[in-house]
C-alpha cells in the first residue's frame, strides 16, 4: 500500500464535497463526531447523506433512530435525489428503530434503567459488529439520554457509549439537539467530551430571513477549517456548503 493509499484509508470521506475540503479530506476514521443543531437544522439529512455516500464507496452503514418511526423517516428521505432505495434493500445502508429493539428486549421504551441502557449498548455494538459497518449514526443521543432518569445515569451511559464507539472501528455521527439560537453543543453538557469532533448547524437572521449556517468546531486529527459557512438543503443536491457572507446589518 502506498503512503497516499494509507492516508486515504485513514480518512472517512463524507462525500459532501465542500465539507471534505473543510475537513482536509474527510473525518479521521474511527472518530465519534457530534452533529449539533436545533430542530430542523439539517442534522438528519447530513447524516443520511454521509451514510449513503459511504455506501456508494463500498462502506456499509447503520442508522439507529430513536426520534421518529422508520416509515416517516424513509418517506422524508425519499424526496432527496441522493437517497437510494437499492442501498437499503441490499443491506449497504441499514435503518434500525431503537425503540423496536427496546420493545423486543422487553425494555420500557420511555424510561431506561442502568441495565436497560447497558443491554441496549450491547445490542448496538453486536449489530455494528455483525454487519461489519464502517459508518454508524445515532439519531439522537439527546433522545437516548432523555430516557435515562438521572444525570449520573446519563453521564455513565455517555462514557460507556464513548468507550464502545472507540472500540468499534467505524466512524460515528451522533446527533445532538440543542435549543435554537443557543451556542451550546449538547443538552447534558457531557456529550461533547466523548466526541472527537463537533459539527455545529445553526442559523443567522438576515432581514428577517433565516440563513442556515455550518461550522466545524473541532475535529481531532484533522487540520480543519474554522470558518462559518452557509448551508443549503435541497432535494436535488442534499446538503451543500458555501462561504457565508460576513457583512451584517
Amino acid at each position, binding site marked *: 500500500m502506498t503512503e497516499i493509499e494509507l492516508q486515504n484509508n485513514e480518512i472517512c470521506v463524507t462525500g459532501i464535497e465542500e465539507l471534505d475540503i473543510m475537513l482536509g479530506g474527510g473525518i479521521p476514521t474511527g472518530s465519534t463526531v457530534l452533529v449539533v443543531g436545533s430542530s430542523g437544522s439539517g442534522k438528519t439529512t447530513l447524516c443520511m447523506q454521509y451514510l449513503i455516500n459511504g455506501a456508494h464507496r463500498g462502506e456499509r452503514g447503520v442508522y439507529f433512530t430513536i426520534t421518529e418511526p422508520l416509515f416517516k423517516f424513509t418517506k422524508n428521505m425519499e424526496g432527496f435525489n441522493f437517497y437510494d432505495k437499492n442501498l437499503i434493500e441490499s443491506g449497504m445502508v441499514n435503518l434500525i428503530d431503537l425503540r423496536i429493539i427496546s420493545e423486543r428486549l422487553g425494555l420500557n421504551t420511555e424510561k431506561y434503567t442502568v441495565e436497560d441502557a447497558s443491554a441496549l449498548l450491547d445490542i448496538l455494538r453486536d449489530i455494528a459488529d455483525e454487519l461489519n459497518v464502517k459508518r454508524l449514526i445515532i439519531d439522537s443521543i439527546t433522545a437516548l439520554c432523555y430516557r435515562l432518569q438521572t444525570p449520573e445515569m446519563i453521564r455513565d451511559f455517555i462514557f460507556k457509549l464513548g468507550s464502545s464507539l472507540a472500540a468499534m472501528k467505524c466512524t460515528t455521527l451522533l446527533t445532538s439537539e440543542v435549543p435554537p439560537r443557543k451556542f451550546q453543543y449538547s443538552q447534558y453538557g457531557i456529550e461533547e467530551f466523548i466526541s472527537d469532533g463537533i459539527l455545529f448547524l445553526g442559523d443567522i437572521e438576515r432581514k428577517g430571513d433565516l440563513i442556515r449556517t455550518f461550522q466545524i468546531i473541532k475535529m481531532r486529527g484533522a487540520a480543519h477549517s474554522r470558518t462559518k459557512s*452557509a448551508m443549503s438543503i435541497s432535494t436535488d443536491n442534499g446538503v*451543500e456548503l*458555501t462561504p457565508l457572507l460576513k457583512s451584517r446589518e
Partner: protein
Amino acid sequence: MANVLINGLKERISNALSINQSIGILIPGNTYSDLTQAIFERFISKPEEAWVYVTVTKPYETLAKQYEFINECINVKFIDCISRVSGLSKPYNNVTFIESPTMLEKLSLEIMNNFKQVGECTKKFLVIDSLTNFIIYNDPEIITEFFYQIINRTRARDIHTISIAIEEKDIENYLNRLIYLHDKILKIKDSFI
C-alpha cells in the same frame, strides 16, 4: 427607434463580451425593457451558448408573458429571486426559485450548480438583473461582498458576467462601486447608446 436601440445594444454587448470577461451595464430606467429584449434575443441567436439569467427585477412569469419565446430557449436557465417574495408560486421547468433576494449564498450555489451541468467547451454567460434591485432587499455592503465572490468564482470558471444596474440617484455611489468591478462598463444614455 426601439429596434435601432435594441440592435445597437446587442452589438455593443456582443463586442464587449468578445474581449472582456465581465461587463457592467448602467442604464436609465426607461431603457430597461430594450436591454432585456436585446439580451433575450441573444439567447435565441446563439443556441450553442449556455446562459444563466438571475432576475430580481421582474418575476419569471412576467418576463415569459412579455417575451414568450424565452420559454422555448433551452440554452438559458433562470434563477428567480423575486417571485416567492411577491407571493407567486407557479413552477416552471427552466426556472429555479430562490425564496428571497436576501438568500445570497443559496443564489451563489444555484448559479454555480447550473453551470456545472454545462460542457467545458461551451461558452458560458451569467446575467445579473439587477444590482439596483439587490440593493433594495439587502444592505449595500453585503451585496458588495456577494458580488466580489461571484465575480471571482465566475472568472475562475471562465464564465462571462453581465450585470445590469438601473440608475438610481439614492444609491449611485454603491452602484458605481459595484459596476467598476467589471472589466468593461457600458453606460447607456436616455437618447441614444
